[in-house]
């Protein structure tokens, strides 16, 4: 077992490496997205031809199909490399987080640096879980962009050396409440990536239906996945995150009862947790309400995530309250 004074700097170095690896993976996903558009065009062009020849030549029977496949193949290789890099970055990141926890002898969620890196870890973790189930590489750019940003900010602005906890945080609820909040942040970040991509793809779809050319970004988004599929991914992710977030709030209330004598006191952090919760509840309702499905619901989801982010960072930085120590 390594001594804490070795573990802490090791953790810092691993964290920097993970950030670098993520940054490269991010470029990979972006490249795949850019090439992937042509791939989709090739594919959509290929379909009628493919259908026409399906009876006689089951695979690769037409020139169009071949072209499409080759272009997709190139993007595909880049995408696969990006996934591999994401895995590598995640391994480094996870090791860094564990080392940090071991160095301090506690759950590494005690200050803003640890929240930010923890949330980034959760985001990549959720993305990888999703990747294992379905090919959601098209979300890679929008998932890794906030991850790299959060890691960069954490390492430069929020950085705090490893250390023990102040008494107010010294509770087993730290591990429960904050872990739930950190994992929720990962889930909501991935959901947001899908939501943003959905809005772009949907905008492009509507322009195309109106007989106009889609914009560059929305065109790329549309090339990556259908708006319906993106919307579904976003919904499923939020539907998974919302109960967890509910649990995080409940666990926080139980802890607040033990530490501050009341389970709810409208402390700014509590207030913004409430706002986030209500907005995500609004999103889930909007998806079942005529006239609000689709874009309106997506905007509510984005507002909910904005409230969530503000709670995670803004409240700690700009508003003083009982959670200020973080």
């Amino acid at each position: 077992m390594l001594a804490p004074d070795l573990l802490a700097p090791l953790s810092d170095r691993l964290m920097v490496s993970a950030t670098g690896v993520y940054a490269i993976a991010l470029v990979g996903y972006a490249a795949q997205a850019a090439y992937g558009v042509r791939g989709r065009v090739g594919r959509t062009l290929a379909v009628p031809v493919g259908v026409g020849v399906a009876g006689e030549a089951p695979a690769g029977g037409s020139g169009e199909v071949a072209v499409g496949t080759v272009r997709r193949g190139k993007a595909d290789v880049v995408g696969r490399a990006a996934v591999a890099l994401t895995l590598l970055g995640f391994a480094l990141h996870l090791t860094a987080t564990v080392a940090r926890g071991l160095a301090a002898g506690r759950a590494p969620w005690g200050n803003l640096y640890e929240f930010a890196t923890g949330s980034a870890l959760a985001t990549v973790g959720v993305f990888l879980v999703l990747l294992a189930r379905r090919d959601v590489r098209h979300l890679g750019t929008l998932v890794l962009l906030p991850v790299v940003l959060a890691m960069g900010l954490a390492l430069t602005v929020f950085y705090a050396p490893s250390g023990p906890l102040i008494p107010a945080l010294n509770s087993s609820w730290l591990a429960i409440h904050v872990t739930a909040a950190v994992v929720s942040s990962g889930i909501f970040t991935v959901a947001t990536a899908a939501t943003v991509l959905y809005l772009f793809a949907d905008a492009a779809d509507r322009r195309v239906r109106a007989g106009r050319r889609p914009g560059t970004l929305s065109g790329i988004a549309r090339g990556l996945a259908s708006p319906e599929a993106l919307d579904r991914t976003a919904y499923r992710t939020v539907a998974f995150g919302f109960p967890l977030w509910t649990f995080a709030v409940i666990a926080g209330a139980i802890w607040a009862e033990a530490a501050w004598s009341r389970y709810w006191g409208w402390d700014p952090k509590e207030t913004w947790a409430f706002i986030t919760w209500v907005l995500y509840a609004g999103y889930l309702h909007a998806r079942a309400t005529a006239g609000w499905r689709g874009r309106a619901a997506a905007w509510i989801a984005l507002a909910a995530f904005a409230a969530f982010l503000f709670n995670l960072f803004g409240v700690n930085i700009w508003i003083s309250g009982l959670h200020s120590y973080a």
Partner: protein
Amino acid sequence: MATGTDTGAPTGATTGTGALAGAHRAGLDTRPEEPRPPGLGPLGWARWARRLLTSMRTALVLLLLLALAAVPGSVLPQRAVNPVTVAEYFRANPDLAPWLDRLSLFDVYRSPWFAAIYLLLVVSLLGCVVPRTRLHLRALLARPPVAPRQLSRLAGADSWITTAPAADVLAATRVELRRRGFRVDRAGDALAAEKGYLRETGNLLFHAALLGVLGGVVLGSLFAVKGSVLVEEGEGFANTPVAYDELTPGRLVDPSTLPPFALTLDDFRARFAESGPQRGAAREFAADVTWRATPDAPARRTTIRVNHPLDAGGETVYLIGHGYAPRFTVRNAEGEVVFADAVPFLPQDGNFASSGVVKVPDGLPQDLGIQAWFLPTAVVDPQRGPVSVFPDAKAPAVFLTAYAGDLGLDAGLPQSVYQLDTDRMRQLQEGGEPFRARLVAGEVVTLPDGMGSLTFDGYLRWANFRIARDPGGPVVLGSALLALVGLGLSLAIRRRRVWLRATPTGDGRTVVEAAGLTRADSTGRGADFTDLVARLRTATGGAPAAPVAAAAEED
């Protein structure tokens, strides 16, 4: 409340996707459609109001409003959170603050408009949960809806021909569906199967439990008690209303019925990081107390820490703050002791530079008032003057000045023990300048103008305890956990319907048609339906499904 397609039946169902929406109208949405716009009769208006209030769109708008309404409370200081910051805001913004106050913006969460929003939400929720509970109970008792005549019209419908007789097909299908947890019903040549009833159960449980949470909060506002008291080391506290510095009983609480416990603070321990980047950060606060649940009960010793409150016979004692109480002795010019006590000072910064006052009303030619700072680790900074550089008492010192005159204690008006009203007092002078003194423990200073002498004897620590009980707490927790369970069920479970019809062709073969519906938020058919149909096909002796069906499923 997810009432979308139910309450907004006419619009809700038609905007759905193709066959699904049609089926909603036909099968899943059993609520009768309301008649066209009501007349102006009172009944019509009542119906209109009910429709409006219970519509999903209203609930959604109210939810968004609730989120928006909660925002100002996090930006502006709130009386319920900290009245002192509200007073400061009033001082800093004398023109704006009264207007904000008129809009209840310093009491957002107790304001009429905030209450209006959540009460309307409660009405909306009730208007939704009650009829839906009735419908759901009916659905639980009812048989799965009969198969639509034209199964092939439903999205994802499939059909195949088998040599097995129709009865065998239906029997095999029934076994297969049962095995998967479907409730199966046979009507003529068709099977109707449904599962996922727990989804709606969870949904209703979630919303009902939210009402439980609110009920618990109301219970708390009626029956909760909270108060706080500052106790110096060596001092005691008996749980009676007069012993509190501050006590807020709920509306229906008789303060004379507080549980009769008592405690003494034997020792308060504070530990801070001595070195490293977090030097000065708190490491441990512990209050060693001796307490009795009742005056006759045996004394027990325990330690109250942050995050580890003491459960004292129905109320809970929390450690929420601490500070220093310097001890002073004041003697008159003849050397007789006229004052000897520890005086709690209030910490003003992270290094516990603490301010306070000593009031000596008797035994001197005039009332004496001492205004002082206690610095636990005192350093005189060239720019900032005396400051404390560490929160622990490593080099404690007191910096003080003195006033003589009328303290105003005889007027009988309540006044703060932490503030000196110097309106009718004059600052003592020495050598033409205001009198100032710096004392370390044990030092004595002679006060000017024959006001005797003052000794700084050392210090005690004090602890601030919050004592609270909230009978609504367990109700809120229980309801919140039920809500979580309900939420999990309603989001994880999918309600599914499967129909299968077996029609003999007359030449010994059987035509089998199968169709399914998933009623979930536009997640569409899951791959599991395709899988299910494939299984049914195999189970009923049909040819294996073409790969087309599986490939069509994109996610």
